[in-house]
């Protein structure tokens, strides 16, 4: 029974089906692991012990009664960006330090409806704005592979909790790489679906035209299992798209024969750590052995991705975060002199430095006289970037490359210069700008630190990304490696 944390979601589901153990036993084992290990990692903001045990008890009863849903009794964690009814939902911010959500996000509802047991809410960069988890009001998350290093961000708590075997899976969100970059830096699988694939209702908004929910797991098969439940149209999210949801689990064993994989010429330019590049090339060679054909494609506007993102995302953030005014919910300053003072001090105190910088950047690029030069210009460049992908996907089915330029960096290393931090997302941001699905899977180690292979496909190609990842994981064992202290 002490080994339950080693099992993947798919393995746990099989064990529950076979009566090898109960959901209560799994839940107790994982809560004990969180209690033992999380102080050093800081992956959780809230641990939901009581609710988790109650849900597990109900799941076991449902299973006995023959009413088991697809995730019945399987443990997961939620990124603290998702609203969870009657549970603290902080978004990593002082602003929402005491916010108890009055409702559930759609994906929280769907996963619970399928029988999932929620262990807790994971730490994250404040309002998902960061690539290192260092902007969280609740302190940085530490990387289980080296506690001096960042697990990446913004879904650093979700990634660290899965990497350290505190939870077999966690929900996450990705606006510029926030699922895939932490997955790469912690040796986990992270998938960001097509924009509109998963409902954003109840997911606290950062940049509405870029944000998308996904999952972090240890295997592609587990990601397929969860995504099948999370995906689908939601009338409560006006950006949700009504598109059929395929059977992700059913399609996962498909052959890669004839799959056309593209390598981006610009990806292997200066900036990419040589050894990371080497490992990624080996991973692509492994895909070739599995039947894929490899060719080179161009993304000529790749260098514009990061600056485009840092106009569009802050612009949308400045608008979305205007709701935090100290009146209806969230932090309120003491003894306001007047309404303006209430707004300015509540927001000044409630938001951290990076969030304030992004709100101000957004305010600037949207302000009179600058709108055309920055915001409208960025929207046009975004179209160019999107066209680049469209052109590339005429010749290939999937684009493969590195997820990050380097393995995990040390906490504090990139906090002085925002641009250095922003450039960490150079390979991932394009998929958000173009609304494309993308996945990062473990593909190697550099100095005992994990790195990721990044796969991007055309809109609605999650099935092919998951299948390609799964087949790769059948042939390699990078994804089974676990940091020594957490085995």
């Amino acid at each position, binding site marked *: 029974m002490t080994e339950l944390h080693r099992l993947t979601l798919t393995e746990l589901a099989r064990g529950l089906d076979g009566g090898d153990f109960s959901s209560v036993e799994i839940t107790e084992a994982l809560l004990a692991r969180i209690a033992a290990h999380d102080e050093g990692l800081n992956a959780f903001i809230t641990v939901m012990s009581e609710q988790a045990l109650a849900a597990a008890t109900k799941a076991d009863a449902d299973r006995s009664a023959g009413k088991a849903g697809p995730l019945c009794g399987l443990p997961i964690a939620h990124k603290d960006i998702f609203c969870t009814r009657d549970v603290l939902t902080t978004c990593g911010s002082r602003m929402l330090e005491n916010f108890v959500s009055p409702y559930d996000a759609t994906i929280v509802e769907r996963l619970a409806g399928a029988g999932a047991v929620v262990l807790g809410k994971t730490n994250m960069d404040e309002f998902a704005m960061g690539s290192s988890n260092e902007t969280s009001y609740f302190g940085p998350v530490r990387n289980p592979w080296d506690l001096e290093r960042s697990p990446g961000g913004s879904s650093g708590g979700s990634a660290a909790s899965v990497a350290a075997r505190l939870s077999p899976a966690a929900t996450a969100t990705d606006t510029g790489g926030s699922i895939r970059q932490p997955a790469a830096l912690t040796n986990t699988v992270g998938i960001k679906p097509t924009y509109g694939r998963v409902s954003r209702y109840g997911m606290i908004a950062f940049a509405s035209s870029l944000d998308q929910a996904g999952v972090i797991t240890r295997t592609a098969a587990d990601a397929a299992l969860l995504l099948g439940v999370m995906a689908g149209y939601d009338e409560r999210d006006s950006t949700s798209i009504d598109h059929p949801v395929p059977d992700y689990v059913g399609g996962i064993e498909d052959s890669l024969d004839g799959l056309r994989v593209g390598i981006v010429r610009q990806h292997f330019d200066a900036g990419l750590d040589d050894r990371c590049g080497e490992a990624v090339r080996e991973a692509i060679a492994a895909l070739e052995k599995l039947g894929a054909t490899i060719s080179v494609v161009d993304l000529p506007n790749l260098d514009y991705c990061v600056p485009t993102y840092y106009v569009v995302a802050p612009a949308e953030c400045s608008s979305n975060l205007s709701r935090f005014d100290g009146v209806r919910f969230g932090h309120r300053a003491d003894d306001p002199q007047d309404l303006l003072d209430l707004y300015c001090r509540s927001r000044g105190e409630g938001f951290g430095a990076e969030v304030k910088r992004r709100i*101000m950047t957004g305010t600037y690029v949207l302000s009179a006289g600058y709108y055309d030069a920055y915001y409208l210009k960025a929207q046009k460049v975004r179209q160019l970037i999107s066209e680049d992908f469209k052109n590339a996907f005429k010749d290939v089915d999937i684009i493969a490359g590195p997820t990050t330029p380097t393995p995990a960096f040390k906490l504090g290393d990139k906090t002085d210069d925002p641009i250095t931090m922003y450039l960490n997302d150079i390979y991932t941001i394009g998929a958000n700008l173009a609304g494309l699905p993308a996945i990062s899977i473990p593909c190697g180690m550099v100095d005992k630190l994990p790195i990721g292979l990044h796969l991007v496909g055309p809109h609605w190609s999650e099935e092919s990304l998951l299948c390609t990842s799964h087949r790769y994981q059948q042939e390699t064992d990078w994804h089974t490696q676990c940091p020594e202290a957490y085995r």
Partner: protein
Amino acid sequence: MRARPPPGDLTLKNSGFPTVSLDKDQVQHIAMLARLRLADDEFAETVDKLSRIVDFVDQLQAAPTDDVRPMAHPLNQSQRLRPDRITEADDRDHVQQNAPAVADGLYLVPKVIE
């Protein structure tokens, strides 16, 4: 294309092209537009880092975008509309448990009208 000279408090130090890096007054003005009070000790850092961000994104000006349609939605779709009907139940008391100050179901703010 470079930014047009902006009106109001964001006026330029030189006529013609704007200086991209921001000065203290501009940052103060942006903070006011964003309804953010910055503490004295965070102000200098904000001016420096915001300037670096604005300088960085300014490289977009070199991108050739004549005749390119701006992209507002990643799948170039338009926003769906829904019928204007009430779908949520009245949950006011529950919702207001998160409010810093309420009375009789109303949100309290400092006096607005003398």
